[in-house]
C-alpha cells in the first residue's frame, strides 16, 4: 500500500522530469541559425565581446555571477555558525544544538554542488563572452586559479567528511568540530581568493600605462580593496546564511502539524534570526571601511558611489537594510509573546520602535529630494534647509549606530523576559566579577587606545592645516568621558546595581556616539572633512564597548536567576514566521543590489583604469533595469533553493521530536 505522501512525491517527481524533458526538447528545436551566430573566430583575432545567443553579454555574466555568489554566500556562511552551534551543543551537552547544526549542514551539502556548477558556468561565460578580458585576467591570476581549484577539492572533501561523519564521530566530538573548523578555513580561503579577483578589477596595482602587468600574482591579490572586501563579504555571508536558515525554519514551522516539530522549527528560526541580526551589527562599519577604501583608491568611484550615479541605489540599500533591522526586531518582539513574564517589558517596545523608524526614515532621506517646480521655488534651491542635513554622511553614521544600539537593547529585553529572583553579583563567585571587570578593562583598552590616537593625531597626516587640530579634541575628550563611565558602571555592577549600570552606559553611549558626535560630524564635514573618518571610527568604537560591557553585565546579572516559566517554543504567531521569510527575501535583494553597486562602480571598465569595455553593452544599467535584474535573480535563487531544500526533505530521515525544553538561546 503506497502512502498518500509517497504518491504525492512520486507524482511531483514525474511532473518535474516531464517539465525538464519538454525544456530539453524545446532547446533542441531552437533554429540552427541561432547557434550559428556563436561560431568560432580566426585564431589571429580575439574578439573583445561576444553575445550569449543574441542576449546582452553583460547581463548574462551579471545574472550568473550573482546567482553563483548567492549560493556561495550560503555555502560559506552556514558552516561558520554550524560549527559554533555544534560546539555549544558539545560543551553544554544539549542535544538540540547538535541536531540543529546537523540540519544546517544537511542544507549545505545540497547547495554545494549547485554553487560549483554555477561557478563553472560563470567561468565559461567569462571566457566565452569576454575573451580578451579573460585572457588578460588569466595572465595575471593563473597561479591563484590553480590554488583555487585545489582548495575547491579540499572544500568538497571537508564538507562531505564533516557531514557524513556526524554519527560516526559522535563519540569523538572534538575531532568532528576540528573537521568543521577545517571546512571553514578552506571555505574562507576560497572566498579570499575569489575576492582578490573582483577587488583587483576595481583597484588594480602594478599596471603600466600601456596595460602591461608588472607585478606578481601575490601583489595583484593584495590590492587595496582585497581585505576590506574580505571582511565585508565574510560578515555578509553569515548574515545571509542566518536569514536563509531562518526562512527555511519558518516554512517548516508553518507546515508542521505536531507541537514537537513546531517547537523545534520555532527555535531554529529564532537561532537563524539571532545569527543574522548579530552579524549585522558589525556589517555597516565593514561597509563604511570598504567604501572609505574605494574612495581612497579612486575619488571618481567614491563620488559615484555616494553622491553620483549610485546615490539613489544607496537609498534603496538603506531601505532594504533598514527593513532588515525593523523586521528582525519585529520578530524578536513577537517572540516575546511566548515568554512568560515578558509583559513587564512590553511598554519599552514602543520606544525602540520609534527609534528604529525615525532612524530608518533619516537613513532613507536623500540629500537631493525630487522636487516639483513649485517646491523648488518654495525652497529656493535643490536642498531642503533641514531635511538636507539628513542626506549627509554624518547623519547616516549617527542613525546607523542608533539602530544597532536599539536592536541590541531589544535583545536585552528578550533575554530577561522571563527572568526573576536575581542573584546579586556581590554574592556570586570571583569568576562572575572577573567577567565584569574583564569586560570593563577591554572597553578601557579600546577607548583608551583610540583616545591616545586622537590626542596625538597630527593634522598634517591628513593634509590639514595645523590649526585644524582643534577639531580632534572633542571626540578625544568624549572617549575619556566614556572611559570614566566604564569605570563607574563596573563599580555599580559590582555593587549590585547592574540594571542602573546598563541603563547608564547605554544612555552615555547614545548621547556620545549618536547625539554629540552625530551633530559634531556636520561641523567636521565642513571644517575638517578628512577627520570625519576618525569621527566614524570613534562612534563605532564607543558603540562596540556598549555591546561588550552591557552584555558582560547582563550575563552575570541573570546568572542563576529564577524563571517565571519556560519559553513556550512553538507558541508563536504565524505573522512572525512570515517576518522570517521576508527577511530572507530582503537579504537576497540586498545582496543583489549591493553586488550591482560594487561591480557597477567600475562603469565602463573591465579593470578600472586599465582595460575599458568598448562594447555596446558597456553603459551602466539604469536603476529600473537593475531592479528587474535583481528581482529576477532573487526569484530564480529562491526557487532554486526551495527546490534544493525540498530534495533534502525527500532524502532525509523524518524529524525525531525531542522534548522541547524552554531554555533560552544565547
Amino acid at each position, binding site marked *: 500500500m503506497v502512502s498518500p505522501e509517497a504518491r504525492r512525491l512520486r507524482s511531483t517527481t514525474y511532473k518535474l522530469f516531464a517539465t525538464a524533458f519538454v525544456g530539453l526538447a524545446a532547446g533542441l528545436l531552437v533554429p540552427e541559425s541561432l547557434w550559428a551566430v556563436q561560431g568560432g573566430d580566426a585564431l589571429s583575432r580575439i574578439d573583445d565581446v561576444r553575445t550569449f545567443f543574441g542576449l546582452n553579454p553583460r547581463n548574462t555574466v551579471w545574472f550568473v555571477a550573482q546567482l553563483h555568489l548567492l549560493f556561495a554566500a550560503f555555502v560559506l556562511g552556514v558552516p561558520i555558525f554550524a560549527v559554533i552551534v555544534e560546539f555549544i551543543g558539545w560543551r553544554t551537552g544539549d542535544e538540540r544544538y547538535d541536531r540543529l547544526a546537523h540540519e544546517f549542514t544537511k542544507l549545505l551539502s545540497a547547495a554545494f554542488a549547485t554553487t560549483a556548477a554555477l561557478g563553472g558556468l560563470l567561468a565559461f561565460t567569462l571566457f566565452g563572452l569576454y575573451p580578451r578580458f579573460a585572457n588578460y585576467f588569466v595572465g595575471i591570476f593563473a597561479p591563484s586559479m590553480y590554488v583555487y581549484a585545489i582548495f575547491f577539492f579540499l572544500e568538497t572533501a571537508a564538507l562531505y567528511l564533516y557531514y557524513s561523519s556526524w554519527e560516526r564521530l559522535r563519540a569523538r566530538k572534538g575531532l568532528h568540530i576540528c573537521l568543521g573548523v577545517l571546512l571553514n578555513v578552506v571555505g574562507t580561503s576560497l572566498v579570499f581568493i575569489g575576492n582578490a579577483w573582483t577587488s583587483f578589477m576595481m583597484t588594480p596595482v602594478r599596471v603600466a600605462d600601456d596595460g602591461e602587468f608588472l607585478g606578481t600574482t601575490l601583489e595583484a591579490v593584495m590590492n587595496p580593496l582585497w581585505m576590506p572586501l574580505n571582511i565585508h563579504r565574510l560578515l555578509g555571508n553569515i548574515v545571509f546564511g542566518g536569514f536563509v536558515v531562518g526562512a527555511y525554519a519558518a516554512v517548516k514551522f508553518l507546515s508542521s502539524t505536531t507541537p514537537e516539530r513546531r517547537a523545534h522549527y520555532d527555535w531554529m528560526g529564532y537561532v537563524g534570526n539571532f545569527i543574522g541580526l548579530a552579524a549585522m551589527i558589525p556589517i555597516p562599519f565593514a561597509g563604511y571601511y570598504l567604501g572609505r577604501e574605494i574612495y581612497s583608491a579612486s575619488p571618481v568611484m567614491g563620488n559615484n558611489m555616494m553622491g553620483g550615479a549610485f546615490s539613489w541605489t544607496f537609498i534603496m540599500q538603506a531601505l532594504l537594510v533598514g527593513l532588515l533591522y525593523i523586521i528582525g526586531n519585529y520578530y524578536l518582539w513577537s517572540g516575546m*509573546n511566548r515568554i512568560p513574564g515578558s509583559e513587564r517589558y512590553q511598554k519599552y517596545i514602543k520606544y525602540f520602535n520609534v527609534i528604529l523608524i525615525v532612524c530608518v526614515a533619516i537613513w532613507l532621506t536623500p540629500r537631493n529630494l525630487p522636487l516639483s517646480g513649485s517646491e523648488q521655488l518654495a525652497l529656493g534651491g535643490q536642498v531642503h534647509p533641514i531635511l538636507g542635513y539628513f542626506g549627509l554622511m554624518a547623519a547616516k553614521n549617527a542613525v546607523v549606530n542608533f539602530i544597532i544600539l536599539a536592536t541590541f537593547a531589544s535583545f536585552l529585553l528578550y533575554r530577561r523576559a522571563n527572568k526573576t529572583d536575581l542573584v546579586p553579583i556581590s554574592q556570586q563567585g570571583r569568576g562572575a566579577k572577573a567577567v565584569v571587570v574583564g569586560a570593563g578593562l577591554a572597553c578601557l583598552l579600546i577607548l583608551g587606545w583610540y583616545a591616545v590616537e586622537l590626542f596625538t593625531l597630527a593634522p598634517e597626516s591628513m593634509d590639514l592645516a595645523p590649526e585644524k587640530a582643534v577639531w580632534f579634541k572633542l571626540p578625544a575628550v568624549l572617549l575619556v568621558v566614556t572611559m570614566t563611565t566604564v569605570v563607574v558602571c563596573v563599580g555599580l555592577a559590582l555593587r549590585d546595581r547592574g540594571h542602573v549600570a546598563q541603563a547608564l552606559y547605554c544612555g552615555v553611549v547614545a548621547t556620545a556616539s549618536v547625539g554629540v558626535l552625530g551633530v559634531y560630524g556636520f561641523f567636521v564635514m565642513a571644517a575638517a572633512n578628512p577627520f570625519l573618518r576618525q569621527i566614524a571610527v570613534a562612534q563605532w568604537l564607543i558603540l562596540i564597548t556598549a555591546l561588550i560591557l552591557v552584555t558582560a553585565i547582563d550575563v552575570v546579572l541573570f546568572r542563576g536567576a529564577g524563571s517565571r516559566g519556560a519559553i513556550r517554543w512553538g*507558541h508563536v504567531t504565524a505573522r512572525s514566521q512570515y517576518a522570517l521569510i521576508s527577511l530572507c527575501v530582503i537579504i537576497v535583494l540586498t545582496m543583489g543590489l549591493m553586488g550591482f553597486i560594487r561591480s557597477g562602480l567600475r562603469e565602463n571598465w573591465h579593470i578600472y583604469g586599465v582595460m575599458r569595455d568598448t562594447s555596446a553593452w558597456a553603459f551602466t544599467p539604469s536603476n529600473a533595469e537593475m531592479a528587474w535584474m535583481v528581482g529576477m535573480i532573487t526569484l530564480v535563487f529562491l526557487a532554486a533553493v526551495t527546490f534544493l531544500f525540498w530534495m533534502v526533505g525527500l532524502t532525509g530521515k523524518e524529524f525525531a521530536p525531542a522534548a522541547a525544553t524552554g531554555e533560552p538561546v544565547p
Partner: protein
Amino acid sequence: MATLQPTPPPLDDDGTVGGLGILPWTAITLVGVYAGLRFGIPWLAVLVGVSANPAPVPKFAMAIYMLCAGLGALVYVSSEDTRWRAFLTPIVQAFVVPHGGGRARRLLPLAIIPLLVAWITWGQVMPSTQSPPEGRIQHPGLPEQFAKLENPFGVLKGPERNAIEREGVILYQKNCRPCHGTKGTGDGPLARGLRLQPVDFTDPGTIATVVEQYPFWRIQKGGIGLPNVATPWNSAMPAWEDEIEPDAIWRIIMAEHGIAGTEPRKPEGSER
C-alpha cells in the same frame, strides 16, 4: 491554524490607553506625524533661522516619512497578540460582524473609504500646470579628464600658500561674489535675481564633500556642462573656461575653501 496561536500572556495592557482603543490612538499618532511634517518642520526651519520663509516638506519626503510611520504603527500593533486583536476588533466589527450600531453605522466607513480613495486619485490625476518632480543626482560622475588633474598649488605650505589664496580671494570677489556672496554663503547681491539660490559653500554637503577637481570641472564647464541626470536646467552657473585661466581657477577654489572655512575631500593614501 488555531493551534498556531499562542495563549496570550496575562498582559496589563488591554489594548486601551486612557479609555481610547489602540485603533484611534494609531490614527491620532499618524495624524500627529502628518501635522508635524506638514506644519512643524516648515516652521522649525524659520525658528532655527535656516530659512526666511517656511520650508515645506516636499511630497516625496512626505510620502517616505508617512510610509515609515505607517510601517512603524503596523509593527507596533501587530507585535503583541492582545494589541493586535484590540486593533483588529473594531475593524472586524465595522465590516464583518453584525454590530449593535446597525446597518447605517457599518455603511458609513464603506462610504468614506471609496470617497477617500477617489479624492486621492483625483488629486493625482487632475490636470496641473506644475512640472513633475525630478529625481536629481547631486554629484554626477567627474569626467576622466578632470579626475586626472592636479592642483599645481596643492603642495604649497605657509606664506606661499597664503599668497596664492589671497590672489584667489581677489579673483573670487571679482567673478564669484556677485552670486555666491562675500562669505561664500550663496547670498550675493545677484542671487535674488536667480530662480534657484547659488550653492552655499559653508554647507557641509557642497564643496567640502568633493575633491578639488570637482569644483574645477564645475567652474570650467558651468551648469550647462552638467549631464542630464543632474538637471543642468536647474543651474545658473556660467561656464568660465573662456574667461578664467586654469591656474586662476585653482586659486579661486583654494580661496573658496578659505572663505567658507572648509576643507576639500582628500582620498587617503592609495597604493596605486
